[in-house]
């Protein structure tokens, strides 16, 4: 390309630049992507307010107002999935943050820094593995015919084998355990990073004053971590209506008898659509989750903003 054609196109380029800057161009791919991936599908919420008529296409049915929601909330499912979603999330938030702080403190107290690194690296590992493989690993432990628990551990203790995949009582603990197994590395690392960020002089001063290790943790580390904990808890509470779909669907191997303790809003939406051929209920539950979720996220964000502007989403 020579100089001459370039000068000739200059006015056009200039004109274009007035309403179309290079920065705009940089945004276009992502903007278009989100338009297709997120914005246009939002229109789909209307399905929740329609009766499905397969012969007319999904959007073609007549409007029925709130009828789908009324029906959904009459079923025991609505209460069950809401209860499960909230209770699991509460348990996860409590245990994860407690353990996260504890492990974070332990990591920061270990003097052999090379060992700290090894521990950190290892406990983060489960986070990277796909939930499908996690489900396989859990099956390796719990399977009745070949799982380690039933074939090795329980016989050693002289106990009867347990059919985990049809015994709902165990699953709240199993799912909480798997969730912690997968997430503890991440949580502890967050807290570890904040602890490392605490001014060492505070500890040195306390040490000079003769404060014991426990007192240092109690009166320096804990108070300094408090804002981080509060922030993370609020953010997690904001997402209390959503759940890790893979954990609740894949890990229990989609087992029917476990539904009572494994059904969350996300799995209900998925099952309604994919297995039970119940699109109206599925989309009503999805819309319910979207709206309630929006409110809780905004509320959480509002509180985060009160505490620390920079950590807020917007």
């Amino acid at each position, binding site marked *: 390309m020579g100089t001459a054609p370039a000068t000739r196109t200059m006015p056009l380029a200039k004109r274009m630049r007035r309403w179309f*800057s*290079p*920065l*705009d161009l940089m*945004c276009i791919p*992502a*903007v278009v992507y*989100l338009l*297709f*991936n*997120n*914005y*246009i*599908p*939002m*229109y789909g*919420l209307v399905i929740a307010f329609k009766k499905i008529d397969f012969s007319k296409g*999904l959007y073609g049915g007549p409007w029925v107002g709130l009828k789908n929601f009324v029906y959904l909330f009459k079923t025991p499912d609505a209460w069950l999935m809401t209860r499960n979603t909230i209770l699991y999330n509460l348990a996860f938030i409590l245990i994860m943050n407690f353990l996260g702080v504890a*492990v974070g403190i*332990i990591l920061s*107290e*270990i*003097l*052999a820094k090379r060992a700290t690194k*090894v*521990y*950190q*690296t*290892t*406990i*983060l*590992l489960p*986070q*990277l*593995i*796909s939930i*499908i*493989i996690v*489900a*396989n*690993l*859990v099956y*390796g*432990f719990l*399977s009745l015919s*070949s799982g380690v628990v039933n*074939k*090795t551990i329980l016989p050693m203790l002289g106990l009867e084998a347990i059919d985990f995949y049809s015994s709902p009582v165990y699953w709240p603990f199993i799912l909480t355990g798997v969730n912690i*197994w997968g997430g503890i*590395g*991440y949580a502890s*690392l*967050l807290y570890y*990073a904040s602890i490392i960020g605490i001014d060492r002089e505070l500890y040195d001063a306390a040490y000079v004053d003769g404060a014991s290790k426990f007192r240092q943790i109690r009166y320096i580390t804990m108070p300094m971590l408090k804002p981080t904990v509060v922030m993370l808890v609020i953010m997690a509470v904001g997402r209390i209506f959503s759940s890790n779909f893979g954990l609740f669907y894949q890990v229990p191997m989609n087992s*029917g008898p476990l539904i009572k303790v494994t059904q969350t809003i996300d799995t209900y939406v998925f099952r309604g659509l994919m297995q039970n051929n119940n699109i109206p209920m599925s*989309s009503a539950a999805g*819309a319910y989750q*979207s709206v309630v979720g929006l409110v809780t996220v905004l509320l959480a964000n509002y509180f985060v903003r009160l505490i620390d502007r920079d950590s807020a*989403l*917007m």
Partner: protein
Amino acid sequence: MQRRLHRTFSPGQIALHLVMIGFMLAALVPFLLMIMSSFTDEDILLKYGYTLFPSKFSLYAYYYLFVADAVTILRSYAVTLGVTASGTMLSLLLTPMMGYALSRKDYRKRGVLTFYIFFTMLFNGGLVPQYLMYTQILHIKNTFAALIVPNLLISAFSILLMKSYFVLNIHPALIEAAKMDGGGEFYIFFRIVMPLSTPILATMGLMTGIGYWNDWMNGLYYISNAKFFSLQVLLNRILANLSFLRQYGNELGFNIPLPSTAIRMAMATIGSVPILVLYPFFQKYFVKGISLGGVKG
């Protein structure tokens, strides 16, 4: 120094180490079990179940996967690799581009666009409409793009993460100087901003890559042609068949051959080994990412 050495081996320290070793074992043992089971003789598996120390080893599962049924596994491996590589690269190009534009204080549309991005984090239309969008309008069913584009390519979260990284780490004076030298926006972005951002790019590339490697949902929704099955999709289908048998087997009235337990574990092993092996090398970016702004895996 003396005192320090002494403290390193104090009972308190040893207790801390023991606790962490416990956590470490909890993280590792399931993987060891998976790997050992994949090498266990099938008869032993049936009799004694999965065990860390099998009494008889067998390479049959791997023979089956890489020799007897090589086409299936090698192809799905290639699909997984191809999707991970191309998806990550594309994402690493498009995400920082928008993040950078939004980080520029002199960009007039940044307020509107930031909200446009942010809003997608608050609200979503759900599975069905998205499925209709991709299959009826964009027609990506049973294409390579179906594994790359939906949901994984660009996320609002990573755009905002990039944006805040640029705001904090790229000084406006630097950009001004480059402009004075006659550098265009794209020149500045590719030659100045991107090279200065390798840490965050590494972290993001890592997270995106793992996301692609582990994905099974896109495969479930948009792929029915065996040519495009990724490793995770294959595994998911086996799990789905197992749970189908649990639920509906009684109405079926005949038996269906399923891959044996050892083969399942071997597939899980080859699906996670690349991550297990590469992880020590890239873990520092991962750790950095978490401290940077809570990158969620």
